[in-house]
């Protein structure tokens, strides 16, 4: 069979891959998009961001309803129809997946469903439902993403031991659920199951959940989780798991004391691993770094000059929006434009309750690198909007360069932090100063005012809080 000739092949149709394919097509290139799953959209759409946020929204309503009682509104015992919940969630994924497909068609991007394998630096073999197809390309973009890591010790082939992918299917509501790993995935999905009624225990090997996030931003999340979960155990290691009838026997160790417990289901959320196995990279000049991620330069180009890599396969922060940005950079670099992934602010959001979001420099990083900063904090207890939402458990802080007063980073914890961080990202990208925040009128009563008030705290002139006046 004659190979299909194309200018650009994009391998993987997640938020990195389809962005790259569409952008290259918009720039007039002939593009082929290869995806092994029947539905486009990648992990983000099919078993990541989107389904988890759908479930988080649905269950947040449950929690709201419960908490309403204290505010004088009682809704009675809710009835949970898991089938209907799944169908609703699935309908969102289908709608978005179809949307991407339609956009691909309109742009003339050819979609090939199947597993891709590099034969050499310019040929991709695709195993499709209708047999092998060969693609002859000028340039390729690898955007195959990552998958949940499953340590072999836990991989018993027992479906009660789940990764995030299976957990998002919500087969049932287990009575006792163990979440191994207190990172953002474990915390988010733990929240979903706890709200649905599971007794959730979260184990974290390190001294804190959400490792790497500034401690003051984690504190409200940990406090809320202690209430929502049956237990939050840090400094705990999982030694062993074994099938015990319809349950899983889990051996853990804390302070050198071993403990055995039975759980109906276990969610393993200990990280993610790049998805490049059996891609045929050995037939190209692509190389990997010491952590096993694909190595590339700031133009996203791998050591094989005609092959680029974007998103999770490169390691770093495994975030859909980073992949999308890298997609654009890779395409621009391919087309000879001056583009590079440099000094780009990538915001991070954790959809726990309350949410955590940050961007730019964090207090932790500043401390590690001995960077001189000033931190201005505004506690949400003084925000009218936070109180009307019955959620004073929030904090907005600005990381400020003391010399230029430039905003180097923003950190927010609180309900709606994910939406609020956008303003912070723009501020950091624009090189805004604390004065810019303070001088910008923010609508009242909103949570966005907390950014302005934090800046005013920096100058010692916040209206709704008394702060030590700045020496000038």
């Amino acid at each position, binding site marked *: 069979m004659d190979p299909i000739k194309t200018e650009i092949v994009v391998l993987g149709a997640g938020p990195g891959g389809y962005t790259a394919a569409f952008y290259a097509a918009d720039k007039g290139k002939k593009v082929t998009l290869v995806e092994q799953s029947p539905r486009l959209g990648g992990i983000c759409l099919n078993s990541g961001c989107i389904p988890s946020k759908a479930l988080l929204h649905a269950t947040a309503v449950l929690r709201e309803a419960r908490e309403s009682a204290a505010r004088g509104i009682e809704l009675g015992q809710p009835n949970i129809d898991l089938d209907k919940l799944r169908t609703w969630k699935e309908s969102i994924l289908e709608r978005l997946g179809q949307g991407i497909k339609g956009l691909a068609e309109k742009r003339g991007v050819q979609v090939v469903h199947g597993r891709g394998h590099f034969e050499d630096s310019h040929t991709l073999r695709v195993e499709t439902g209708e047999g092998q197809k060969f693609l002859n390309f000028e340039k390729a973009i690898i955007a195959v993403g990552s998958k949940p890591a499953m340590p072999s010790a836990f991989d018993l082939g027992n479906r009660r031991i789940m990764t995030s992918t299976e957990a998002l299917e919500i087969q049932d509501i287990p009575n006792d659920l163990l979440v191994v790993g207190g990172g953002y995935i474990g915390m988010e999905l733990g929240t979903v199951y706890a709200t649905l009624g599971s007794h959730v225990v979260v184990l974290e090997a390190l001294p804190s959940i959400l490792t790497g996030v500034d401690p003051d931003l984690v504190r409200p999340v940990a406090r809320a989780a202690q209430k929502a979960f049956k237990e939050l155990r840090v400094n705990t290691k999982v030694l062993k798991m074994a099938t015990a009838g319809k349950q899983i026997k889990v051996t853990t160790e804390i302070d050198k004391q071993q403990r055995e417990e039975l759980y109906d289901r276990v969610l393993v959320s200990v990280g993610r691993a790049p998805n490049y196995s059996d891609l045929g990279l050995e037939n190209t000049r692509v190389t990997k770094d010491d952590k096993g991620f694909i190595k590339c330069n700031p133009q996203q180009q791998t050591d094989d000059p005609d092959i680029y890599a974007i998103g999770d396969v490169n390691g770093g922060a495994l975030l859909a929006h980073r992949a999308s940005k890298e997609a654009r950079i890779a395409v621009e670099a391919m087309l000879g434009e001056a583009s*590079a992934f440099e000094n780009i602010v990538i915001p991070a959001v954790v959809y726990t309750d309350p949410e955590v979001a940050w961007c730019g420099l964090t207090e932790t990083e500043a401390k590690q*690198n001995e960077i*001189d900063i000033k931190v201005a904090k505004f506690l949400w207890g003084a925000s009218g909007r936070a109180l009307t939402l019955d959620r004073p458990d929030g904090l907005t802080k600005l990381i400020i360069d003391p010399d230029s007063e430039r905003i180097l980073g923003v950190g927010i914890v609180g309900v709606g932090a994910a939406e609020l961080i956008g303003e912070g990202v723009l501020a950091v990208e624009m090189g805004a100063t604390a004065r810019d925040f303070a001088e910008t009128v923010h609508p009242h009563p909103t949570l966005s005012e907390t950014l302005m008030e934090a800046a005013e705290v920096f100058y010692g002139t916040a209206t709704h809080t008394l702060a030590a006046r700045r020496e000038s």
Partner: protein
Amino acid sequence: MDVKLPRLAEGVESGIVVNILVSEGQKIQKDQPFIELETQKAVGSIPSPASGKVSKIHVKDGMEVAVGQLLITIATESDSANVSAPARQEASRPPEVAPDSQISGGTRSAKGPDAKTPAESFRYESKSGAPPPASPSIRKIARDLGIDLMRIKGSEAGGRIVLEDMRAYIQNLQRLTFEEPEGRTGAILKPAPAQSESIDFAKWGPIRRERMSPLRQTVSRRMSESWTTIPKINQFDDIDITDLLAVRKKYATAYEKKGQRLTLTAFLLNIVAGALQKYPRANASLDAETSEIVYKNYFHIGIAVDTEGGLIVPVLRDVDKKNLFELSKDLHELTEKTRQRKVSLEELQGGTFTISNQGTIGGSHFTPIIYAPQVAILGVGQGQAKPVVVEGKIAVRTLLPVCLAYDHRVLDGADAVRFLKEIIAGLENFPESQVKLK
């Protein structure tokens, strides 16, 4: 910890790796030099900002590296947990990279005709290591145009760069580019255009092309500049050093016992410092902008040193305040340091006069080129036995060929001759008492 190329000196953006002094896996101490870099100005070594083990070397010999570029990665004890922590360049000691070695004299105003703040003088610095503040759209434009935002001074709050700042910067660059040739210094900053025509030398036989090192380029530029701007006179003479050599021979062993070699250059330094005090114009500089002659009440003499990398002129301080033994000692240390490329930035600046002694290699009279902004230089050849008429009889004497090159804008012929005669008389009648070790 990742160690990047720190800011070296004003105007030095990059350099060529000439020597890597460590290897992967090797232990390294804080402040231990790990790389030698040749820049437009000179060769210098870069000290390590921390102790630890070299886990990776990211550069190769002959590679051009820019400020901020990753050089090596050091595994320090403290960063086992945080490998990616960027090295704090600001905290590291300024490396021993030399400034204009050819300009050994003080500050030189290189300003354009009316550039209030020349574009090239600004450089953004942030203790936090953050890039210059500018919106994404401005950064995009800068990237497209290949403009380094670090060079643009932002006018907005916090130093934020806006389109206006970039426009002004570019317009200034363009103005400087096209106005300089008619300006005071313009013509000499670039090689003569007539020579830029490419000649195909390979037509007549096999050739090899080698890129001029940054140091060579600087030497070349400074020499052309001096040659084309300074109305120069070369004054030749011979010095009878027969008696001086006898004195030197007499005391050489005594000096050697104290670990020093008594060299002719040490005598020259001593005598020249005295002559400069008597004829201060030879120790002066011209400030053409203000039409003033700058007299210096210090006597720092540059010594031309032949190194593997090329000519470098370190400066010996306060020559007038040192006795012959101290001069011998300091001279030896300074030249050794220069040959080993360990000479510091300060040691290459502030010279008021230069001695170029080729005598150790050979040669007779030659016409040295003045190191602007100095106004005179003494070129010294090799002493040779010659028949000379002494008191009506022919005698064999050792004559030292010398040439004083001087800037006629500052020094007149009569002054220069008097100055040279002072040096000759000084060497021919060098008092033995000054050689004696106390």
